[in-house]
């Protein structure tokens, strides 16, 4: 059994670590204990600023600090960063192309018991519509750390999506390469491509094994970067496997699956079926039954993969 670490934990650790290497400052909105920016605060108390429960102002303050040459990270729950402060992100951060890094935690249904008001299933859709915004959704702790450093080195606004729940460490920290905009083939396959992001990468790998038992060969691609999306890798996969299933812990409207479909309908129109939450709000509950209830499972990926393969004929 692999070690389990929430990506928000890795985010907080990465901020604390990279705070020694790069000149970053961190803002939070009264959620430092939850977003794990508290780890940065403990090591760099002079570079941490609580903004109180005022996310709109926090994004604006970060924009101003970036305009004055700093590299600010801002953190809150995805709902209140991408959601409440959407317009501040669009107009104060992205329009002037300022160097603000948004670390949004508690994204998706894996928020669990807090329920629908806090389960942001729309943030990828909101953020990727903004010109010049880089959008990343790490799958595990190793990728989360790499995404944070890549965000620091990237000049311009970045949105990073992290989860509340502990998830297995999928990647080898000692041998991990990361590049913004690059998807990674985790497993080869020829009958169908499963393109996954975030916590659904683990489910995609499980689905691949289940499909193999049924004689279906599935390629698995991890897309941490949702914008700019890896057009070449996805197009080649569509050409070589002839159908695609996408998987994300987000609404099927406007998110990762939509981004993949947008690419492939232009470059290689093949069947694309999407796994994600349907056009619904979440609800309170434990994480595993919530994932079942909203179809965020390896089995749902398997079912969609079989349908996609059938649609090829």
């Amino acid at each position, binding site marked *: 059994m692999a070690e389990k670490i929430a990506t928000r934990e890795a985010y907080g650790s990465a901020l604390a670590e990279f705070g020694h290497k790069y000149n970053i*400052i961190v803002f939070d909105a009264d959620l430092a204990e939850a977003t794990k920016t508290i780890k940065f605060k403990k090591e760099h108390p002079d*570079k941490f*600023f609580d*903004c*109180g429960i*005022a996310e*709109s*102002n926090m*994004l*604006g*303050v*970060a*924009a*101003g*600090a*970036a*305009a*004055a*040459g*700093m590299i*600010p990270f801002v953190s809150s729950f995805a709902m209140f960063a991408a959601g409440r402060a959407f*317009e*501040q992100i669009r*107009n*104060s951060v992205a*329009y*002037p*192309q300022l160097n603000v890094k948004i670390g949004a935690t508690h994204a998706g249904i894996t928020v669990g018991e807090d329920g629908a008001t806090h389960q942001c299933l729309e943030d990828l859709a909101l953020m990727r519509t903004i010109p010049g915004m880089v959008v990343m959704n790490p799958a595990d702790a190793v990728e989360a750390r790499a995404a944070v450093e890549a965000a620091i080195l990237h000049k311009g606004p970045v949105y990073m999506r992290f989860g509340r729940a502990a998830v297995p460490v999928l990647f080898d920290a000692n041998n991990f390469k990361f590049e913004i905009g690059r998807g990674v083939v985790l497993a080869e396959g020829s009958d169908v491509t499963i393109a996954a992001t975030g916590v659904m990468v683990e489910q995609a790998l499980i689905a691949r094994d289940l499909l193999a038992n049924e004689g279906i060969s599935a390629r698995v691609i991890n897309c941490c970067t949702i914008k700019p999306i890896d057009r070449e890798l996805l197009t080649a996969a569509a050409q070589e496997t002839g159908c695609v299933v996408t998987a994300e812990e987000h609404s099927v409207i406007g998110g990762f699956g939509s981004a993949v479909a947008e690419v492939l309908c232009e470059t290689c129109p093949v069947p694309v079926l999407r796994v994600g939450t349907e056009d619904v709000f979440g609800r309170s509950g434990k994480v595993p039954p919530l994932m079942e209830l909203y179809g965020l499972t390896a089995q749902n990926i398997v079912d969609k993969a079989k349908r996609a393969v059938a649609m090829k004929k």
Partner: protein
Amino acid sequence: MDSVARRELQKTAANVRLGILEEVFNASSGHPGGSLSIADIITYLYFAEMNVRPDEPDWDDRDRFVLSKGHTCPALYAALAEKGFFPKEDLKTFRHIDSYLQGHPDKKHIPGIDMSSGSLGQGISAACGMALAGKLQNKSYRVYTALGDGESQEGQVWEAAMFAAHYKLDNLCAVLDFNGLQIDGAVTEVMNPTPLDDKFRAFGWHVIVIDGHDFDQIEAAYNEAKTVKGQPTLILAKTVKGKGVSYMENKAGWHGKAPNADEYAQGVAELNAYIETL
């Protein structure tokens, strides 16, 4: 302020007002009313207060200005052009498809613009961020911002007001252009934000109330702000919307409307006549 300095500022402000009219007339759109009400203050900032370099607009140690009431950028553009940040003849391209002079301030493309703004309530937050950054970097620059009275209805203004006082941003000086009118009418009738002096004091700011068209009072207020330690300063400037163009004065209808050719000619004539008296 000696009479020569005052006369020079009055003359420059009148030229800024001519620039405002030129911009909105040639754009057939824009916001003259609030541009004219803030014109004296912006003139003072760029010609008597702020440490800026027109030939090096991104100079690290410059004082910063954020026009939180971004729709009144005709005043700011005219002042920047007067100061030499870009050619005055470009003012007539304001809002045109091939111009860099966007309908609201655009930091990326306009020399001298320190922050993009226009969505009300957001500029003051950016100014707070710049002031905080100045302190973190041990810079001595000051940060200025201008708010509208209608803008103070935005909740974000008060989030920012809390932040600035909490972090003791005494290098931040905001001015609130209280011309009393917004698009739908008198601010006190649309959604009464007063008393703004008491509100900012309650939020922890040092507050100075002045006549925003009197250069002696403007100078005294900005000088006083520099002596305040441990808290930000708000200058509550009582102004006249449309100031300097008779038919626009105190008329909400001139918030976001361009003059026609006759009206433009009359405004230019009035301002030129005023300059003659100086």
